[in-house]
């Protein structure tokens, strides 16, 4: 009786719940969404690792990158993958410029002014994109072929999902190698661990942070190029994606690359299952915010974030 009324409130039908195909279909869609959230969450984690704060301008730089990818591919006729790579390079250059002009004048150890600056940059870049390219929606083709190699009734695992997932894992692998095996990676981690000691071993802090911005922008652009084909390209698109990606990054732990991927997949799955089985499509964004809240309350370091150990 109680169960029936709860089910009634949420409009849950037992037909739906016992439909295996629907579960599988939503699982695949969750993976697909999750991969895109993860890809943008990776950019957030990268910039957080280098600067110790959440960079709100990140989504906007990615937005700019995606528009550039659109220009290069749809308007200039380059193959999509090539256009995306060009856009990654271009958005890195923009990010380095932005960092040099708007960020470096501020001392890197005073976080609050920097966060405000990145908020301002978000508004400026988003508006600029709107002014230049207008607010009409466009569609960016995916880098991956259409079709689905695995099909089971309505459940489809598409090439696009597979490609997106593969790209995300490849990015994590490359970033891991970059951070743990190269000199610039060491400098990058040293700066985020102890700014003063980083200076004292001769690391040039400004350019190292600029490199972090460039890297994060190119990853964000790549992430955007994975997200946008699922939706439509318009100037506010990254804002919506950013909320889910922020939830993913928070869940995984803001400084963990692997955490960003797992967080993205969990948020993607949770969103699709909740929307389908509880009929909560109006609350999809709210579920992302709920994830952020719960993580901050229960486990502020996220699933894989490092607790900073410092003995005194």
């Amino acid at each position, binding site marked *: 009786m109680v169960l029936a009324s709860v089910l009634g409130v949420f409009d849950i039908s037992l037909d739906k719940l016992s439909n295996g195909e629907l579960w599988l279909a939503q699982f695949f869609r969750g993976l697909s969404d999750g991969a895109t959230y993860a890809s943008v969450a990776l950019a957030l984690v990268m910039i957080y690792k280098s600067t110790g704060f959440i960079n709100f301008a990140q989504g906007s730089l990615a937005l700019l990158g995606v528009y550039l990818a659109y220009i290069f591919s749809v308007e200039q006729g380059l193959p999509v993958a090539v256009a995306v790579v060009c856009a990654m390079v271009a958005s890195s250059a923009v990010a380095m410029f932005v960092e040099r002009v708007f960020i470096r004048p501020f001392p890197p150890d005073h976080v609050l002014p920097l966060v405000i600056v990145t908020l301002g940059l978000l508004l400026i870049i988003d508006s600029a994109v709107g002014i230049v390219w207008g607010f009409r929606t466009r569609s960016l083709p995916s880098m991956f072929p259409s079709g689905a190699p695995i099909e089971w009734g309505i459940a489809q695992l598409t090439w696009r999902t597979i490609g997106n997932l593969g790209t995300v894992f490849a990015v994590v692998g490359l970033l891991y190698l970059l951070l743990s095996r190269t000199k610039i990676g*060491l*400098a990058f*981690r*040293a700066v985020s661990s*102890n700014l003063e*000691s980083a200076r*004292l*071993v001769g690391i040039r802090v400004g350019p190292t942070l600029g490199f972090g911005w460039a890297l994060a922008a190119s990853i964000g652009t790549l992430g955007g190029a994975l997200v946008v084909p699922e939706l439509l390209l318009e100037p506010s698109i990254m804002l919506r994606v950013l909320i889910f990606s922020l939830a993913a990054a928070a869940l995984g732990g803001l400084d963990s690359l692997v955490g960003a991927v797992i967080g993205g997949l969990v948020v993607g799955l949770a969103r699709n299952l909740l929307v389908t089985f509880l009929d909560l499509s109006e609350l999809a964004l709210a579920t992302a915010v709920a994830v952020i809240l719960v993580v901050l309350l229960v486990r502020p370091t996220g699933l894989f974030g490092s607790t900073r150990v410092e*003995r005194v």
Partner: protein
Amino acid sequence: MSAPYLEVAGLKAAYGDIQVLHGIDFSVDEGQIAVILGANGAGKTTTLRALCAMVSTEGSVQLAGEELSGRRTADIVRRGVAHVPQGRGTFPDLSVEENLMAGAYVRSDADVRSDMEQWFETFPVLGERRTQTAGSLSGGEQQMLAIARALMLRPSLLLLDEPSLGLAPMITRSLFEQLTSINATAGTTMLVVEQNASLALGVADVAYVLEAGEVALSGPADELAADDSVRRAYLGY
């Protein structure tokens, strides 16, 4: 007589509006150990920070005849100046090995690995903990790591800010023995800020006593240590 290796003239430093150093002069010859003594707030730490451009300064700092003032920290480090700051001179999130690799950041020669192994022999406890994060080491181990990190630069001038801070007396003594032996074998010039005046004067060649941002007293370390009135007035032991 040749010119001193480090020659500081009229060095002033300020944090915002607060003037900490009011124009100090001192010098250290190549291969010497110099110690800066003085009460809390006398400007000892600021002096070391000023040499590395970690604070805004006026005046002249010459290293081997080359002017350092006006240069950035990263460039000063590239001229062989290593600085062990007070307290946390390590990268707490990096492993012990990575801390040492970071210490050799500006070096591009092939001996970095073997240098690291050498410091693991000198400080065996660091070798045992090479894969642990620096933040998980005890205070004394972190201090050793900070010093080893600085030595990875193969510095010509080593600046040490209160290396004994928070260390047990026995560990402090062995640390100073290590420093004198490094000074003797590698010929590294050292400038040490230290609260433990008797210990520091025991290993130093020259000493400068700072008082309220000015050099109040200077001379060979053994003479200062032997002068009872100086000891009572400035050194407090």
